[in-house]
């Protein structure tokens, strides 16, 4: 008896001999596996490249070893001294402002909202500000003939119709545009960037008159610490020294936490979509292996007759399948690994860093592991079937049993492989909850499509036996019979096409809903402009300026301050237990206001509003959702740091806020008598007809250079464009799934070609015309495509609904056009592929198939 040790080399020898037959029949196998692995490897490599860049350029991105951000106020002398004692300090200020061409007379020319940044002579401490022409920052900003210099994004020049060397007006000051910005090392990535960058020197800022009490301005103090300093320890010491400073402090160790979190999340979604492509590819792998092993049944029976044990057969063909699989995986890894090199430049447009293109072993290893596990999970069953091929088939070629369930041990191994795949997906994900939902969703989707395929076959069987079809419509009966006959590719087609389609429908619906929310559904009451930084003494004049423009309406003004929540019910904010969903409220300064009467449209859901003449201890009305996430009750207290002063107020009411109304809303509204004395500005909203928009901005900004106008529609379009880019990335990956699905579909149909040709020949002998055969096959594929599309539409809609409402927490609208377009496309695709295969089958000459010799 041959031992297991001796059997393995023999199995490998048999595998090698079988491989001499070439890769015919394995092309789809290779392509499906390679593409699936490539998708995952590409996303992983790209993510690692960006991650590497974010970490590598952390100091440049942060602007220093540490960054201290203060809202509304500059650092006190003591604070500044403490910073200077530690290292080199670079100060900058950021605010929004309106600019225009200096030559344009008042009342003419375009006004442009810019993100203004004023920097000192040490800027940037790390990295370089890339300018065109390549001049030094000193040359770019210095006063020349009494005029300071400025540098700007090319967009500023394009939108104002200016050239370098021309001048712009910024507040009360005039600047000469000396260079355009190619790369700003510490530019933040945010959806709330409302205009292009304009950069001037700190020395020039006072002349603009833009900094007024209460202005929305952010000061950054970046420090370059001496070598060997411990940035985190220094920050901790600073926090002890100035406990009430109210600044946000970061060290380079954690330079871009939100960006990194955001990118990790995107990478996770893309990886999961890539994994879907691989799962669909797995179906193709299973089909190819099954078709191959069916063709080898006689060889296997011969080997068994000659004394080969079942185990040897299994090992030999497992080795052969894995040899081919490893080729596919290697191709996929190679494709995936080059993606960062191809896309690094294009990504620079979206990211603050240049992706570090390179080979990243960890994501490649992960993609390879996915490939190996997928191969194992999808080939185990056909391999087990081949192992159980009865040697008697050489003597008695009765058909194999129509359905054969795997043995218990095989079923357990199959489950084990599937579980390992799921475990890998969950373990390697940054957000395990999402990965878990994905695994559950994938299992449910595969099960739903398998069930649908069974239902299609069962319905076709029932329909084909109805008297009407039996007696009157043989073409239809033949087509229906093709859907349920033994070995029909119904399940393969429905699965391979359906999963990709489900993804596309879901992505289309989520994207459609998000875009609809930010662009299409501008609420009826939404203002056209937000005006910010209105000084209290400018209110009257602002009112006059707005009302003087025909076509404006709905002017509302409210005081606006910035403050940071420091304690919830006496517990320091950083130690409070809150729902992470509302963590953003505590992360930085929030806008707040005060009012004697409830804001128009406010919906008080608990507690009551204070009397209009209230003059007691501080009260606050809070956003109900935030209150829920902070576990706050009526009567609890909230402590807010407003410009260094702590205000503790008791919660008097909760308001349900409809943020999407885009009217003036604040998380916190204080009772009168608390904040009136603090430096503050006003914020106003105005509705304007299309014709009144430009005149309105001119009227306000000509009169008050410090007031900035935010065009609501443009701001939303900018956000929509970012969303669109993300959706494109997801759609591109989802398209991978559809491509793999189409390959698998094509493979399933190609495997059918022989049978289809034979059927066509026999039917032609029996008198079937080409038209009858074509009609039969078209009905068959029409039904298959339509059924797959219908199920995919339903499942995709469900997934889209869940993602939109549960993960994105957005409003849901069913978008029939998005679904119908995808569904129609899929039906046509199936018909086209089916038609192509059928056409070839019909073209075959019958005689060669019918000859005996």
């Amino acid at each position, binding site marked *: 008896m041959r031992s297991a040790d001796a059997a393995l080399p023999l199995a490998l020898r048999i595998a090698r001999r079988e491989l001499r037959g070439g890769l015919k029949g394995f092309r789809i196998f290779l392509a499906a596996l390679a593409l699936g692995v490539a998708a995952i490897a590409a996303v992983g490599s790209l993510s690692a490249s960006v991650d590497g860049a974010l970490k590598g350029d952390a100091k440049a991105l942060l602007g220093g070893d540490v960054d201290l951000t203060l809202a509304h106020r500059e650092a006190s002398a003591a604070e500044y001294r403490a910073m200077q004692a530690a290292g080199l300090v670079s100060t900058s200020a950021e605010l929004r402002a309106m600019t225009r061409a200096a030559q344009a007379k008042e009342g003419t020319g375009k006004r442009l909202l810019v993100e203004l940044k004023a920097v000192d002579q040490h800027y940037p401490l790390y990295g370089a500000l890339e300018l065109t022409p390549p001049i030094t920052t000193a040359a770019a900003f210095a006063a020349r003939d009494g005029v300071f210099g400025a540098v700007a994004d090319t967009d500023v020049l394009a939108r104002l119709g200016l050239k370098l060397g021309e001048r712009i007006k910024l507040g009360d000051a005039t600047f000469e545009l000396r260079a355009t910005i190619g790369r700003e090392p510490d530019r933040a990535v945010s959806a709330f960037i409302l205009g292009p960058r304009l950069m001037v020197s700190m020395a020039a800022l006072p002349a603009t008159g833009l900094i007024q009490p209460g202005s929305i301005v952010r000061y950054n103090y970046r420090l370059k610490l001496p070598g060997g300093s411990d940035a985190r320890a220094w920050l901790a010491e600073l926090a002890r020294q100035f406990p009430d400073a109210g600044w946000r402090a970061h060290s380079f160790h954690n330079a871009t936490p939100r960006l990194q979190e955001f990118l990790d999340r995107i990478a996770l979604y893309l990886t999961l979509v890539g994994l879907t492509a691989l799962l669909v590819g797995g179906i193709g792998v299973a089909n190819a292996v099954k078709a191959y092993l069916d063709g080898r049944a006689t060889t296997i029976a011969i080997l068994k007759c000659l004394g080969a044990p079942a185990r040897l057969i299994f090992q030999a063909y497992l080795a052969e399948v894995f040899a081919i699989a490893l080729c596919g995986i290697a191709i996929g890894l190679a494709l995936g690994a080059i993606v960062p090199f191809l896309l690094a430049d294009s990504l620079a447009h979206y990211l603050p860093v240049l992706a570090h293109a390179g080979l990243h072993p960890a994501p490649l290893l992960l993609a390879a592991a996915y490939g190996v596990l997928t191969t194992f999970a999808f080939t185990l069953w056909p391999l087990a079937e081949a192992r159980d091929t009865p040697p008697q088939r050489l003597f008695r070629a009765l058909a*194999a049993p129509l359905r054969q369930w795997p043995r218990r041990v095989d079923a357990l191994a199959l489950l084990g492989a599937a579980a390992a795949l799921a475990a890998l997906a969950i373990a390697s994900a940054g957000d395990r909850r999402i990965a878990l939902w994905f695994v559950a969703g994938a299992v449910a989707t595969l099960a739903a499509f398998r069930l649908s395929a069974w239902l299609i076959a069962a319905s076709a069987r029932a329909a084909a036996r109805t008297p009407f079809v039996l007696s009157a419509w043989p073409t239809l009966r033949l087509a229906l*019979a093709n859907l349920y006959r033994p*070995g029909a590719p119904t399940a393969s087609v429905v699965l391979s096409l359906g999963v990709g389609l489900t993804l596309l429908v879901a992505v289309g619906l989520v994207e459609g809903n998000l875009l609809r929310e930010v662009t299409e559904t501008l609420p009826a009451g939404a203002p056209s402009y937000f005006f910010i930084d209105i000084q209290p003494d400018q209110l009257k004049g602002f009112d006059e300026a707005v009302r003087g423009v025909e076509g404006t309406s709905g002017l509302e003004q409210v005081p606006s301050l910035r403050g940071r929540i420091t304690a919830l019910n006496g517990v320091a904010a950083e130690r409070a237990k809150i729902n992470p969903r509302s963590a953003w409220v505590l992360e930085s300064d929030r806008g707040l206001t005060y009012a004697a009467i409830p804001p128009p449209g406010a919906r008080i859901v608990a507690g009551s509003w204070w009397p209009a003449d209230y003059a007691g201890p501080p009260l606050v009305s809070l956003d109900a959702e935030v209150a829920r996430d902070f576990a706050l009750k009526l009567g609890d207290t909230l402590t807010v740091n407003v410009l260094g002063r702590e205000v503790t107020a008791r919660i008097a009411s909760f308001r349900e806020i409809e943020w999407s109304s885009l009217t003036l809303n604040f998380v916190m509204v204080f009772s009168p008598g608390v904040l009136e004395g603090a430096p503050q500005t006003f914020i106003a909203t105005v509705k304007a007809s299309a014709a009144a928009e430009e005149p309105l901005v001119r009227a306000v900004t000509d009169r008050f250079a410090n007031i900035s106008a935010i065009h609501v529609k443009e701001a939303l379009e900018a956000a929509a464009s970012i969303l669109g880019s993300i959706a494109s990335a997801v759609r591109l990956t989802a398209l991978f799934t559809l491509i793999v699905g189409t390959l698998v579909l094509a493979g399933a149909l190609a495997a059918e070609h022989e049978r289809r040709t034979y059927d066509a020949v026999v039917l032609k*002998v029996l*008198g079937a*015309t080409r038209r009858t055969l074509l009609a039969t096959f078209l009905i068959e594929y029409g039904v298959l495509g339509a059924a797959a599309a219908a199920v995919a539409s339903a499942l995709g809609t469900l997934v889209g609904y869940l993602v939109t409402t549960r993960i994105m927490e957005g409003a849901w609208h069913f978008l029939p056009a998005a679904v119908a377009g995808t569904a129609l496309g899929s039906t046509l695709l199936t018909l086209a592929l089916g038609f192509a295969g059928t056409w070839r089958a019909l073209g075959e000459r019958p*005689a060669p198939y019918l000859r*005996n010799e």
Partner: protein
Amino acid sequence: MPTRSPPGREAIIRLEDVHLKLASAAGLVNILNGIDLAIQAGESVGLVGPSGSGKTSLMMLVAGLERPSEGRISVAGQAFAGLDEDALARFRRDNVGIVFQAFHLVPTMTALENVAIPLELAGIKDAFARARVGLEAVGLGSRIHHYPGQLSGGEQQRTALARAFATEPRLLLADEPTGNLDGKTGEAIIELLFDLRARRGTTLLLITHDPAIARRCDRIVRLADGRIIDDRRAESTTTALPQ
């Protein structure tokens, strides 16, 4: 050696100076060289000859499954010249039944579906009822829902016979129908074939290597190298098969 119809009877198959050349890797191969043949309605003709003599090709031509390189063919009063593929398919549907050595059943259709399909194609309303009767007539009434793979060789050929006779064709073409069967099963199939033919008065063109089977026909046509080298009445049309 040209053959003519006996006086007073109509020729259901007529081949005049038929040539067939097929392309192969070695160039054009002459398969049939000037065949002249007429077969009367109701006649049974055994087509014999060595392998490669052109028997199957001749049958393919008569079935309209192959087109002659030269010459004229008419079957059941229909000249094939100028008929397209679909017209020939309709012609077969209405006039011809074929039995193959390799059965050529559709493996993914049950026996009942295999027999019903030509009836369905002919637009016959009660196709399945008739197919069932046909299968019962060949002794397969209990196996109608079996797939070909689940039937023995003899059963498959009986299904093929039921299929060939289902539309009650005027002409039955049989290409070595017992070639894949053991002797006893083959005899039973031949018995069945001649019995069905006799009952329905079907014209039969039968290819066989078995002289005993050939002798059961009215006439024996012998082919060699693509030519008819002998065409005569069978010695005895009543010779019983050895029991």
